[in-house]
């Protein structure tokens, strides 16, 4: 009985249940089109895993995850565009807009699939390490950190738009045909991409859970709640925050890379300010400090966006903003905290009758 009750046993059961849903039920129950949409939502959920760690546990309001999502996405898309064009040819958009006759120097390494794959994760992590060490050592915190992240997302999107000849500009990198030799218009291969994404999500959730439960995870919460106190215990909080920030960036990068074969495009509109905020909203609504809450929240909000913006394209943005504010103001722990609140209310209600007679006796 005890084996079934421990938190690790419950987590194992949860992972098994999630695996059954993702690998057996969803592919059977959903059409190819819907499964493709789910793959897209799962990419958002992967970003949310990182946000749960950095924001929920570390208190870093990462309002610029689009930068890392974009770095991963562009790294993957650049390789796929080069592969689509074939040896010696330029990607289609460069032939249209560009005057260059050969690949720009910074595209060339991405012709190598291993380099491109490594870059999808390592490039965002390296950028985050550089930014983070600067930001955290200067003790930039709270709203200033959020605004800075946001500004970076905007700057990155604007830079991409300005470089039409080499980045595809506003259109981004579109019309991606193949994925390491597999044609993406084949539903079987689309299914494979979905399975890869689902597996990566579960793997990263397991990794994040290990981090949250480790001594590092406890220290991260301590830094979130009282950074100064941690410093007096002999730790440098800048390093503690940096680890969470870099890991979250790596996860966002991987999500961006997987988004490209799932959807077939990466563009500035998918990584700027609005998408960066959207990444955070899902985690906030579901519960930023809870891994399961953040992931389910991200999937639910991404799904609601598709469902509602088809019907009410103009109203969705306002609704989304309202959702964010309501979640932060009235339910800071997100939907994941509801169970705990109900339990506490019930416990308090049960306690009351026992307290009253004592009061009367006194």
């Amino acid at each position, binding site marked *: 009985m005890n084996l079934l009750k421990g938190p690790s046993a419950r987590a194992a059961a949860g992972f098994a249940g999630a695996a059954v849903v993702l690998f057996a039920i969803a592919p059977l129950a959903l059409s190819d089109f819907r499964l493709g949409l789910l793959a897209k939502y799962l990419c958002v959920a992967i970003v949310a895993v990182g946000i749960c760690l950095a924001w929920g546990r570390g208190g870093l309001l990462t309002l610029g995850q689009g930068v890392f999502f974009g770095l991963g996405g562009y790294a993957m898309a650049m390789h796929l565009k080069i592969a689509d064009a074939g040896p010696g040819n330029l990607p289609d958009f460069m032939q249209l807009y560009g005057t260059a006759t050969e690949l720009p120097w910074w595209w060339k390494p991405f012709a190598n699939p291993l380099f491109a794959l490594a870059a999808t994760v390592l490039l965002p992590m390296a950028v985050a390490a550089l930014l983070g060490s600067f930001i955290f050592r200067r003790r930039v915190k709270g709203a200033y950190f959020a605004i800075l992240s946001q500004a970076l997302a905007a700057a990155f999107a604007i830079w991409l738009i300005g470089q039409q000849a080499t980045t595809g500009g506003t259109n981004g990198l579109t019309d991606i045909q193949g994925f390491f030799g597999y044609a993406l218009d084949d539903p079987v291969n689309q299914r494979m991409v979905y399975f890869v994404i689902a597996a990566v999500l579960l793997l990263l959730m397991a990794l994040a859970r*290990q*981090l949250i*439960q*480790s*001594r*590092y995870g*406890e*220290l991260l*919460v*301590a830094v979130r*709640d*009282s950074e*100064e*106190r*941690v*410093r*007096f*215990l*002999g*730790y*440098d909080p800048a390093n503690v925050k940096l680890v969470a920030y870099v890991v979250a960036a790596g996860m966002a990068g991987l999500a961006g890379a997987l988004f490209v074969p799932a959807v077939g495009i990466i563009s500035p509109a998918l990584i700027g300010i609005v998408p960066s905020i959207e990444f955070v909203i899902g985690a906030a609504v579901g519960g930023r400090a809870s891994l399961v809450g953040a992931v389910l929240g991200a999937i639910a909000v991404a799904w609601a966006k598709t469902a509602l913006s088809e019907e009410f394209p103009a109203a969705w943005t306002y609704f989304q903003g309202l959702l964010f504010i309501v979640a932060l103001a009235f339910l800071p722990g997100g939907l994941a905290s509801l169970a705990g609140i109900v339990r506490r209310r019930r416990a308090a209600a049960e306690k009351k009758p026992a307290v009253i007679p004592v009061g009367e006796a006194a």
Partner: protein
Amino acid sequence: MSGLEIRRLRVTFDGFTAVDGVDLDVRPGDLRFLIGPNGAGKTTLVDAVTGLVKAEGSARFGGEELLGRSVHRIARSGIGRTFQTATVFEELTVLQNLDIAAGAGRGVWTMLRRRKGVPEPVARALETVGLTELADSPAGTLAHGQKQWLEIGMLLVQDVRLLLLDEPVAGMSHDERQATGELLQRISEERTVVVIEHDMDFMRSFARSVSVLHAGKVLSEGTVAEVQADPKVQEVYLGHAAAEATADVAVQEA
């Protein structure tokens, strides 16, 4: 081994001199009380020694210069402090609080693994500060006095050689004060303890030596009896009371 040696320590904020050339020696194993009226510079002195504010002069502990080093490096060289308001990690349990305090020297792999069981020094500290029963309670649910004890326990597992405690018995009941005083006497047998305190009864009961600060300077130093007999100290405390009375009148008139 030499204890804490402070020489010509000066701290100024925008032209206001909070600590004005303080010389202070605390030998290892001492239980030194820092007393003085509000604004005498007691907390600022501790802030300077722990790296929280910039200071001129010199502050050495165990022969090592502390001024100019960052807060976490000073902490790592064996100096710990508490604050006037107890600051513990409210959402973490008592055990987690102590485990974090014990771990500044841990390697990457230990940090990335889960804590298994209760480390030896943490168990001992729980016993010493009397919180063994509450090890798994969130620190936020502790009573005020218990939080102060947890903070002292955190300094013990941190294995600091110098404890700087800022009003550790503020808001405690008489029994809690007694227990805390006895705890500090036990701790000071192996470590150096400096206590900032306003409570004169507590000071008389437990101090091994006393320094009186006034207007950023050391006014008097010695045993409790010596300091109490010092006419300068009497004047400052009486004069301070008189000044306060005048201030009260001024406020009422305004």
